[in-house]
């Protein structure tokens, strides 16, 4: 437990100290919210546009922090030999992974809180009426996308271009699943692709919980789909993730 807390503190220290990572993952959702919120006015499908964008960008925050941020960080640390070096210390791999996961969850939670505060201050969006459901959504979203992040980290061979590969997944996925705003006006085949992607189901939960005041637990299907993707991520990670540099 002491080691877990120590490593959690280390992960947070390294994350906030590395400006590029923090800017790319933390600032980006906030920046997009302000930009899109300034462009879209009026109502989107019955709710004020800023509310709808806020609900959407929480999901983008999850994808960029937990999936992109964690996988790039793990690949860079693996290729630099930091993970190998840590393997020789008393810190056990499961404790390291648990701390990395919890750290990414905390960062995503911070993005979510700042989105709500920013929305309230800039666009007058309401705070969520079901904070408990928002917390559960943050937990499920980070577990699922962090698992997928570790899985993709196992598939990426070198740190050069890991950021390009991961963003090539995150940006189209966010666009297709409505994490950058509603997709109902998209052509049918684009929406069909979006429906096959895991982020779609986090967007569904976010819309239900924040925009329509539903309980988290009322979203059984979406919870199930995200859990299944999370398990798939863990399985891929178990087969592909290693602690030693690939490209040495």
């Amino acid at each position, binding site marked *: 437990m002491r*080691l877990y807390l*120590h*490593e959690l503190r*280390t992960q947070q*220290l*390294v994350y906030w*100290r*590395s*400006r590029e990572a923090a800017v790319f993952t933390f600032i980006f959702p906030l920046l997009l919210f302000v930009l899109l919120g300034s462009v879209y006015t009026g109502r989107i499908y019955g709710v004020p546009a800023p509310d709808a964008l806020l609900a959407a960008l929480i999901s983008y925050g999850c994808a960029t922090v937990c999936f992109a941020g964690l996988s790039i960080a793990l690949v860079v640390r693996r290729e*630099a*030999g*930091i993970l*190998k*070096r*840590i*393997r*020789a*210390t*008393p*810190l056990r791999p499961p404790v390291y992974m648990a701390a990395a996961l919890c750290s990414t969850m905390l960062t995503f939670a911070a993005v979510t809180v700042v989105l709500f505060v920013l929305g309230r201050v800039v666009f007058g969006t309401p705070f969520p009426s079901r904070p408990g459901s928002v917390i559960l959504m943050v937990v499920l979203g980070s577990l699922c996308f962090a698992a997928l992040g570790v899985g993709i980290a196992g598939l990426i061979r070198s740190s050069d271009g890991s950021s390009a590969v991961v963003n090539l997944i995150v940006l189209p996925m966010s666009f297709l699943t409505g994490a950058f705003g509603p997709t109902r006006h998209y052509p049918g085949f684009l929406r069909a692709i979006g429906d096959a992607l895991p982020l779609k189901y986090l967007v569904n939960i976010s819309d239900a919980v924040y925009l329509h005041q539903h309980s988290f637990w009322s979203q059984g299907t979406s919870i199930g789909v995200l859990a299944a993707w999370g398990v798939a991520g863990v399985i891929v990670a178990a087969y592909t993730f290693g602690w*030693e*540099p690939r490209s*040495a």
Partner: protein
Amino acid sequence: MTAIAVRGLRKSYGPLEAVRGVDFDIEEGEVFGLLGPNGAGKTTTVEILEGYRSRDAGEVSVLGSDPQKPRRDFRERIGVVLQQAQLWQTLTVRETHRVFAGYYEHPRDVDEVIDLVGLADKRDARVQTLSGGQKRRLDLGVALVGDPDLVFLDEPTTGFDPAARRAAWEMIRSLRSLGKTVLLTTHYLDEAEQLADRVAVMRQGVVVRIGTPRELTTTETEVEIRYRRDGEEVLVRTGDPTRALHELTSEALARGEELERLEVRRPTLEDVYLSLVEEADEA
């Protein structure tokens, strides 16, 4: 007490037999050098001892543990300097030491370790601003911060300029005075000669010679006698130098000649090493 015992160690990567039956013992408090050219199996051997790799055959005991199934305290008691490893570029020297200190139950004082490895004036510098030699000292610092009994140094001075190597050697000598057991791999002969109490020369996955640097050179019985005759260098290799020299000099005296540039030379560790490595090339 024996810190490390290795018997019949074998390891293959696919068809490549990296280690083909290695035996050695390292006593507590000893500085032991594994010397050999690139690809001799040094790093594979060390990484098995560190617990990174499984072995295909043989017995290994490191501080009483099998590194494949280490006891709880195994990683508390070892310190590792890898051949190539970076640390977090954006943390400072002190933060990096504190992170590693936090991984151990009974770490040494962080500032004391930073002083020991000579980074006191870089305490608050970011890792990315350090020179190559300073980064290597940081590696050594974080390997020592857990107060290990046994330190693995995999090619600790590769790529150093001569001054940085001297400084690193001083630090490694200071480990001996702290009572640490050190396993050092190197492909520099002078490094092994300068630092190690005993040396094992590895070639193609086996230990071909083991002993103190002095023993390695004295077990080689052939002595070289060189001189010049009519401007041509003559080289005599002999296991019986007294007789050979007597014959040579008495013949020369009889002819009334001088043996120009007469030289009798015991092979250096370098000669022994090169002859061992060259045998490998002929094999």
